[in-house]
């Protein structure tokens, strides 16, 4: 074969064309193999089951997630806690649950990590795992596995209008006596001291939980462990004092009328409209309070329940967090979303929308610092305890407490009877 051989030239030309085409084909094939994968890595589809109180913060993070990964979609369904109990369990049992789920710490209600532990994935290997404070291990771990990503801290206290308090010279109390005196002043001014929304089932527990830290946990921070070991009972502990003080607030006329017939929305609206001076609820309700009031001049105060200011304690809990459905543990989309959620910028966006202190590192937030100032003092002093029910062995005791409060406020039962039934349910 010579250079002058037209056939060989033609063959060469054919060969080079074939080679070029083969190379192009291989390139396209490689591209086709690689390109969709890299595109898929940048575009995720997943579902998120959220608590309706966290719809706004969750949506804020979702918007950022979709902006970072164009073409992604996060289908969020949000429901109130009572509906979430049912929908989460039923969808998990049916195998149709969302990839990312809302969970709560402990074992005391149907969506706690203890109850769902076989159905949610271990997050220990995620990059954010080491950033979760060790002090929260009891809340976010179950049987040694990290099952919940907490974003914000929550507390139970009185949400109050700061300008009203400042203009009337009302100062925040540090003892039960001071608290009653404050309520008396508020009542004398023509306002309702405490708006109560006991018509919403889960709200019933909140005043008890706000009082218990000073009465029970200030003296015995290990009360939960002692209760589990059977060393103490609800009926013979500070729980009795807490429930009696709850009733004392009603007897003194400090609670709004018809508490059992009032929903949490009405409760918040009473404060937002200036009819009432405070609503003792979880800090997660601050965003709704802002919405109802049309301004953000509110803060949250811990409720003292002891006559000794040194025993002034309050609650601090990662009451809600996110978990991965075990069936989606290998899902790139779920992993990407959880990692994104734990990024400092996302935590900051979430916490700002939720108006809450953060669990994970994030940028400073002056508004949150202002709103939680009195709570932060107790938090820094180590005078906080998680919500009392998170270590309970079953959801029944909590429900008996909620219904029992309604019965107590309606005068249909006694404190001893409620606590006896709670002990029975706890020990069952």
């Amino acid at each position: 074969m010579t250079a002058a051989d037209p056939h060989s030239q033609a063959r060469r030309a054919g060969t080079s064309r074939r080679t070029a085409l083969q190379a192009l084909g291989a390139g396209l094939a490689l591209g086709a193999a690689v390109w969709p994968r890299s595109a898929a890595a940048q575009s995720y589809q997943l579902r998120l089951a959220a608590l309706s109180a966290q719809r706004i913060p969750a949506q804020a993070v979702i918007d950022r997630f979709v902006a970072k990964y164009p073409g992604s979609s996060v289908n969020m369904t949000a429901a109130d806690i009572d509906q979430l109990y049912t929908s989460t369990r039923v969808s998990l049992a049916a195998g149709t649950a969302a990839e990312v789920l809302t969970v709560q710490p402990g074992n005391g209600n149907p969506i706690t990590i203890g109850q769902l532990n076989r159905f949610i994935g271990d997050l220990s290997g995620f990059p954010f795992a080491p950033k979760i404070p060790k002090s929260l291990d009891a809340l976010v771990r179950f049987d040694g596995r990290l099952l919940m990503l907490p974003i914000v801290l929550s507390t139970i206290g009185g949400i109050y209008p700061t300008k009203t308090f400042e203009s009337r010279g009302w100062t925040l109390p540090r003892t039960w006596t001071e608290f009653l005196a404050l309520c008396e002043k508020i009542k004398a001014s023509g306002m309702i001291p405490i708006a109560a929304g006991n018509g919403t089932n889960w709200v019933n527990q909140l005043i008890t939980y706000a009082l218990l830290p000073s009465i029970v946990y200030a003296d015995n921070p290990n009360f939960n462990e002692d209760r589990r070991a059977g060393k103490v009972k609800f009926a013979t502990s500070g729980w009795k004092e807490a429930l009696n003080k709850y009733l004392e607030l009603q007897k003194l006329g400090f609670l709004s009328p018809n508490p059992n017939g009032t929903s949490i929305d009405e409760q918040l609206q009473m404060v937002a409209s200036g009819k009432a001076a405070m609503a003792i609820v979880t800090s997660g309700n601050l965003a709704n309070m802002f919405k109802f009031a049309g301004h953000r001049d509110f803060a949250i105060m811990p409720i003292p329940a002891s006559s000794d200011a040194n025993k002034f304690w309050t609650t601090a809990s990662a009451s809600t967090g996110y978990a991965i459905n075990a069936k989606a543990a290998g899902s790139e989309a779920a992993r990407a979303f959880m990692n994104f959620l734990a990024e400092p910028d996302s935590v900051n966006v979430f916490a700002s929308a939720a108006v809450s202190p953060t669990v994970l590192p994030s940028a400073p937030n002056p508004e949150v610092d202002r709103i939680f100032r009195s709570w932060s003092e107790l938090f820094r002093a180590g005078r906080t305890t998680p919500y009392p029910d998170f270590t309970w062995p079953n959801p029944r005791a909590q429900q008996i407490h909620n219904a029992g409060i309604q019965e107590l406020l309606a005068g249909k039962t006694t404190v001893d009877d409620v606590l006896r039934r709670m002990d029975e349910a706890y020990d069952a």
Partner: protein
Amino acid sequence: MTPESASLGGRPAQSRAPRRRRAVRRVAWWFLAPALAIYVLVIVYPMLAGIWYAFTDWNGLDPDYRFVGLANFRRLAGDPQAVSSLKMTFVFAIAIALLQNLFGLALALALNERLRLRDPLRLLFFMPVVLTPLIISFLWKYIFSTQGPLNTVLAMAGLGAWQLSWLGDPMPAVASIVIATLWQSVGLAMVIYLAGLQSIPAELTEAARLDGAGPWQVLRFVTLPMLAPAMTVTIVNSLITSLKLFDQIYVLTGGGPGYATETMSTLIYKTAFTFAETGYGSAISVVFTFAVAAVVLAALHVLRRREFEHG
């Protein structure tokens, strides 16, 4: 093809007819099969599964559960909550069935007369029937709320003393649920009674009037006996729906205050889903199903006998 021509094939027509009937039946079964399969899948299988779970300690989630025999039923027998819920279920059922029929009949009698606004009024009273109970319950929850329209109207009318915690005190809460349920269901009873009234021959009432019967006597001795079949339908229907009442209670009170409006339906829901005791919840369901069936069958027996007595 005539029977004669059919017999030309060498087989008598009588022997072919059963074969044809069998063939028709076979075809009918093929047509029925898809619907039956769906029915078995979504009704029969879950029902049987529910009965099976009643003998287990399943929590509704874990695939592992134990067979516990009659333990759930023994627990139910000693559960004061179940007893009080059963009582409340019958309180609601009796109150709603009675009032629904009473108001339904009264409306039907009134709207069977020649009124100028008869048709629009019939439509108006029937309209709530086609709405979703859940939506209606949320509307009533707003109306009954402490600061809601009902208390506001009472205050404006100078009836401040009548303002109540409609959903927060036990007795008003029960009454509120009954009112919300009746508001929706009375229209259905009215329509059934109207149909019954229109089937009564005019000659009967005219003859009674000619015999000197007054309006009350016509109602008592002619209209009501002739309405016996309609009564059977509405009473049985209202008994069944009010015994399994759930949406209205769930939305309006959640079974509260305390347990004041807790019925078997809400108890079953809470036990199975909130307390994560699906096995026990299934046991309550099984017992309750038989209780409802017994009550409805007894009512049906009495009402049918009444129909027979009235010819």
